[in-house]
């Protein structure tokens, strides 16, 4: 019991320390000071009165929400830190094995191209980059070499898919339709959903700056004109001077050093976002966000609840010496093909790079990281795959059987949509409505449910012999509602 108490006070001290620098803290202080003038605050019961006042005003609720995301998930006090990252041993092993392959690929790219992992830029190059900061997309593609071998390249295609009913043969707890109905009551057919923007009046949650209420509101979709503010509120992504300063520091880091992973980012942006009808205009913003993201060590905090482990690199000449290891890249996240699509839809909402950055970083450390690391989390990609297969098997078994029989495993089709949370596959307005629910329900589960329709849609189209259309005309939310509640 004593140990628990000690642990608790350490945790509290950590939270207080972390909150001290945050805007929320100064807000809390200000409110507390101001409320002292109020008649209901009595000197004798100062502490209780102030506490109840803050509770009633909703600020405490915001602090709770904020803390919820900053704290590691509750676990057994005696559990080792690996358990917080991922409780199941076999999952940890799978993730570690996957990471090994990625690193091998990255290292061979490094040696084959003869490019260092990091390099300090000469002054002339720094100046040039500073001038071109707002139009990095004009860089000639030939200047940036990158060739990352597919980490799966030596994997035999030996999965005897036909002998299994589905590709994911793991028993994880995933929700079926009746359970989803309970979890997502706001999606029921009787609740109105926002699809077409028709509101001119500001939703009260915005004017009250209530983060928890905004999250609840988002479950039924956000009006186009207020989505940017609502998301920022839900994510507690502020644009205070300290945030802007942090972003400027990251920008300075980009100017000073060139990283090998930057080549991966350039290649990704050119191949994905720049070729997308909706997002090509935002090319420059993507570099401004992703290059800074790679250098942001604050992102390392999320590895305490991420099954992945940031790759380590040794300072030249000191291989093996623990004291000379650095995390590479500084934020511990190696970008991959399609990574920039996590950022692209946000460009639709936010203009100022520092604001865009805050929102993206928060979305990544809360949700997106789960889509490319192997874990048992219900929002993790493994669970989503399993849930998708189960939903299809249980509710559209003939379709599932047919697809498997013709060698078109449904998961192989749907996987790429889920990894990207549908970015680049759905039209922007539908995508944003889907992401409204990810934020509203604080879970990626909806991505699994939403994947069922496109499979059906594509299959029906191919039967009708039409050109296999892309998903850009699909209205996912209404279909999901019917699937769950009709």
């Amino acid at each position, binding site marked *: 019991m004593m140990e628990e108490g000690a642990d608790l006070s350490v945790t509290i001290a950590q939270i207080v320390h972390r909150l001290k620098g945050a805007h929320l803290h100064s807000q809390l202080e200000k409110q507390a000071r101001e409320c002292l003038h109020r008649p209901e605050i009595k000197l004798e019961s100062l502490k209780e009165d102030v506490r109840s006042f803050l509770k009633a005003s909703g600020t405490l609720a915001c602090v709770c929400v904020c803390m919820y995301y900053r704290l590691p998930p509750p676990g057994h006090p005696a559990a080792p830190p690996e358990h917080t990252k991922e409780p199941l041993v076999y999952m940890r092993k799978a993730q570690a094995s996957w990471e090994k392959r990625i690193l091998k690929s990255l290292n061979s790219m490094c040696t084959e191209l003869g490019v260092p992992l990091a390099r300090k830029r000469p002054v002339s190059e720094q100046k040039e980059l500073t001038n071109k900061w707002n139009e990095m997309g004009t860089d000639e593609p030939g200047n940036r070499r990158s060739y990352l071998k597919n980490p799966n390249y030596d994997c035999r295609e030996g999965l005897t898919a036909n002998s299994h009913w589905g590709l994911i043969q793991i028993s994880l707890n995933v929700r079926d339709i009746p359970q989803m109905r309970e979890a997502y009551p706001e999606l029921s057919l009787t609740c109105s959903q926002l699809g077409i923007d028709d509101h001119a009046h500001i939703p009260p949650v915005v004017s009250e700056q209530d983060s928890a209420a905004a999250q609840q509101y988002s479950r039924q979709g956000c009006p186009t004109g207020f989505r940017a503010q609502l998301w920022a509120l839900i994510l507690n992504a502020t644009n205070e001077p300290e945030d802007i300063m942090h972003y400027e520091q990251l920008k300075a880091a980009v100017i000073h050093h060139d990283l090998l992973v930057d080549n991966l980012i350039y290649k990704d942006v050119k191949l994905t976002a720049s070729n997308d009808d909706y997002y*090509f205009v935002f090319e*420059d913003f993507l570099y401004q966000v992703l290059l800074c993201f790679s250098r942001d060590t604050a992102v390392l905090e999320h590895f305490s609840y991420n099954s992945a482990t940031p790759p380590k690199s040794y300072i030249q000449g000191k291989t093996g010496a623990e004291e000379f290891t650095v995390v590479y890249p500084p934020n511990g996240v190696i970008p991959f093909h399609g990574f920039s699509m996590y950022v692209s839809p946000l460009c639709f909402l936010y203009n100022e790079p520092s604001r865009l950055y805050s929102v993206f970083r928060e979305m990544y450390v809360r949700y997106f990281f789960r889509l490319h690391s192997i874990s048992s989390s219900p929002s993790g990609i493994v669970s989503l795959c399993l849930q998708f297969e189960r939903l299809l098997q249980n509710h559209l078994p003939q379709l599932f059987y047919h697809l498997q029989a013709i060698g078109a495993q449904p998961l192989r089709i749907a996987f790429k949509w889920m990894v990207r949370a549908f970015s680049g596959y759905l039209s922007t307005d539908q995508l944003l409505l889907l992401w409204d629910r990810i934020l509203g329900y604080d879970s990626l589960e909806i991505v699994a449910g939403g994947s069922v329709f496109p499979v059906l849609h594509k299959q029906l189209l191919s039967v009708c012999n039409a050109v296999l259309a892309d998903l850009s005309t699909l209205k996912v939310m209404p279909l999901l509602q019917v699937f769950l509640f009709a």
Partner: protein
Amino acid sequence: TFFPSQQNSIGYTLTSLPPNSDSPDREGRSSVRYKCSMINSILDVLRQRPGWVEIKEDGEWDFNWCDVGWLRENFDHSYMEEHVRICHFRNHYELTRKNLMVKNLKRYRKTLDREVGRLEGAKCDFFPCTFELPSEYHLFVEEFKRSPGSIWIMKPVARSQGKGIFLFRKLKDIMEWKKVQRFSLNFEDQRDEAPVESYVAQRYIENPYLIGGRKFDLRVYVLVTSYLPLKAWLYRDGFARFSNTRFSLSSIDDQYVHLTNVAVQKTAPDYDPEKGCKWQMQQLRRYLTAKHGSEAVETLFKDIDNIFIRSLLSVQKVIINDKHCFELYGYDILLDQHLKPWLIEVNASPSLTASSQEDYEMKYRLLEDTLNVVDMEGRLTGKEKRVGGYDLMWNDGPVYREDVSLETLGTTYQIANTNLGCVNDRRKQLRQLLKPFPGHKRS
């Protein structure tokens, strides 16, 4: 090349025809003979329309989708029966040639100033300061000198697709051009030589609205079925055309930066046809709403409506109104940083060639609905306010969404019946609106 997706005639699911009691017995044709000089989406639309038969070469036709050249040569000598329709007005160039458009707008504005007041005239303040050359050369120089350092754009009046256009900041930049044009201020000289091509010199909009650092303009479609009285429809779809390169005033010579016509963009060195330099109007409207809020965007679209209406009113009395004629205009609009729309030009023959599958489908819908409005088949009552993706914008007066006027309640606030950039659920609407094609049953 793009394959048309299965765009069949609208399938009906109703089992009984709704009564259409207020239609006078309009002569609907079960078979329409058409002529078409284009080989792009319009031909596909015509070919797939039930009951429409193509006429080659000489032969009687009921419907002609002609080009303006044919019109110029043949219109005056053609006799057309009452039901016949043709897709241009005889003197459309009053609106679609840059110099004439400006002339008509200036005249219209003066009329408004005089007859109604300056406030009303100010509503025509949507085109940049423009002068016709060579005739208004002196006026141009006066204005040019009054605003030193500003950028001007020179455009030939009758060419399209961005040809012959250039920017300049100094008068000496156009000296060369003057020589080439065999420019003469002496009227006597001009008479004997070949006619000098007419140009307009216009103040360049130096602060365009940028998205991702890029300039773009809007292409909007307006269908006019009559000038006297004026009846005009606005299509919900349209698109924004982006420049492939980031906007900057430092390079005036780089025409790729400043001109957003797809034809010019296609020749730019880093043009990637797969990239798609276009956004659908709905995408743009949503983007602007997300950035500026719905109120600001509604004001913007109201201002855009104003451009269409006033430009059409300015030529209403000049255009030879002929009941056989209708015309589909492609309006080019530019937004500036203050979200003010500017009229760049009006096209009588907007491009119907598609740049992508999505573009093809949009143009297909547009043309199909154009034919629905023209209504050779006699399926409409004439009282409709919406046909497919078209909303009736002006019918000898403004058209409002609600039929009941609120004037009785002491207020005159009404919402215009336009929905540019809004959801285009045309199939559903057409199903409810139209009788099946003559000779076809509801499926």
